[in-house]
């Protein structure tokens, strides 16, 4: 097989912005079946197959190597697998979908402004409260890596797939690790980002799988497409 597969977010603002970005670079992505179809093409490039996927699945499939390149968030590459960043190459940050993965604590925790304060609080939380400090997040991999680097081991994560910012008030967790672009949702829920609490700055990126089977011919096809987009695979 010599064709290559591009994965594009399947819906919403992210799909729109992705198609606009490709169009601005002279490649028009078509979706003949409309929003219910998951197969598309690029005008004038018959050997590129376009597939429409949710962004989190794009990250997963790029890491596994079942699709060749695609648009997804940097956060999803880091979250999907610890080996995610090593399994792909970021060909180009696209300048939209910007958001930070942050650690936020209740505003009322006036004694906690930095990660090192959190380390202190976590270290004796168990002896004070008979349980571990609980962190609500959908970013379990990123949280574990970041907290390990900060030397914090004494906590539990509580998986939260939506409305993470409500977890402290509902008693599900004590603090959160969440994604935010302006911080306003966190602030509205009485949460404050730690001064050194930005764990990852994310944005939509054009990402190339390193694990896809790259024959010389397929790699040449990819390089040609990337060149038209003003970038290269980086490997």
């Amino acid at each position, binding site marked *: 097989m010599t064709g290559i597969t591009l994965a594009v977010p399947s819906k919403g603002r992210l799909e729109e912005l992705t198609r606009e970005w490709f169009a601005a670079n002279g490649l028009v992505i078509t979706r003949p079946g409309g929003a219910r179809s998951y197969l598309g093409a690029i005008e004038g490039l018959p050997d590129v197959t376009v597939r429409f996927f949710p962004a989190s699945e794009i990250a997963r499939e790029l890491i596994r190597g079942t699709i060749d390149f695609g648009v997804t968030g940097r956060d999803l590459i880091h979250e999907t697998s610890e080996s995610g960043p090593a399994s792909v190459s970021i060909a180009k940050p696209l300048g939209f979908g910007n958001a930070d993965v942050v650690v936020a604590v*209740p505003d*009322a*925790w006036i*004694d906690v402004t930095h990660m090192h304060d959190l*380390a202190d*609080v976590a270290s*004796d939380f168990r002896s004070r409260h008979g349980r571990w400090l609980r962190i609500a997040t959908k970013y379990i991999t990123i949280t574990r890596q970041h907290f390990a680097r*900060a*030397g914090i*081991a004494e906590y539990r994560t509580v998986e939260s797939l939506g409305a993470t910012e409500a977890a402290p008030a509902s008693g599900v967790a004590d603090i959160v690790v969440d994604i935010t672009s302006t911080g306003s949702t966190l602030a509205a829920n009485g949460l404050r980002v730690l001064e050194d609490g930005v764990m990852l700055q994310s944005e939509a990126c054009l990402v190339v799988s390193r694990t896809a089977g790259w024959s010389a011919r397929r790699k040449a096809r990819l390089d040609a497409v990337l060149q038209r987009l003003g970038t290269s695979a980086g490997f």
Partner: protein
Amino acid sequence: MDPGLRRDDTVFVGVMEVTNPALRRANLESLVEAQGACRATPPLLLSADPYFDLAGEEFGRRLLLTTDTTGAEYCLRPDFTLPIVKSYIDDGVGEPAAFSYMGPIFRQRENGPAEFDQAGIELLAQPDGDVALDQVLTFARAALSIFGVAPDIRLGGVGLFEALLVQADMPDAWRPRIRNRFGHPEAMNRLLTRLEAAPDAPRGKQPSRKALVADITEQMVAAGLSLSESRSPDEIADRYLEQQALDAAQVPPATLKLLRDYLAISGPVLQALTQVEALAAQHKLMLGAPIRTIRRHLDGLGEARVAFDAGFSPRLDYYTGIVFEMTGPRGDILASGGQYDRLLERLGATAPIAASGCSVWVDRLEAEVSA
């Protein structure tokens, strides 16, 4: 039941001809059986919660997890120590006990999940912790010698560091903060660097505790937070005031230098311990007892290459006394263990109970031979 040192087993193993994989494994099996201990065979499928509770998320990410129909989490056995110690506690603690084991454990690795064989011993509530640790070290060395490995041994002194920390000149509130970072060089370095920096500019007048508690309570109520389920207003106010006091009560520069100098000590054990003694003399610290304890174990280690690394400790705070790692020529850690007198309390025992043990990585030992 005190099996003592059983040096006869070591000799027995030492003279066996190392010929083939099956025989080596059989020899290891007999070594495990010969520990005068109960052979422990905990189930392969275990509740995951105790692991998260004991070791936190950092270890949790290494588990192979599955859930039952109610959503309760289980894991494939990731180690032997925890199920052995838990069942010992459940059976009613107090009696000295010894357990040995050999079998598969399961952990996530960078390149995918894996099944490994581990062998080891656990010595619980033994009357003499020194003798127990000697037996553990002897077991580990005997296991390695079956595979023809004369290891490099790295010793860490958790008890030694704790003794130093208790005596070092600093405000009390800093001691637990420093202890908490022992065994994590980057976090320790960040803390010491922070303490070495000039103190913050003096803050404004301290609010009264009462006013603080009232403010915090008001904020928590406004945000819909429970005042009792998580951190309470009192706890937050106290720690806030403590932080303010800590900014004023800096750790003296001489103490920071002592900690830096101490944690940097690493090298051949006799040389390193001499450095520790010199540092102790310079700072008028009484570290004789923990240093002598380490020296006592050296006799039993004979000709092995032994290093002491002052900053070396597992990150888990239930370790006490002495900890060790044995590495082979390829640099892999082949055996690790030590003393963990706080483990049983952490798992629900009502009083401290002496514990020591080690585990040996059988697959890595086999790789040493085939290399």
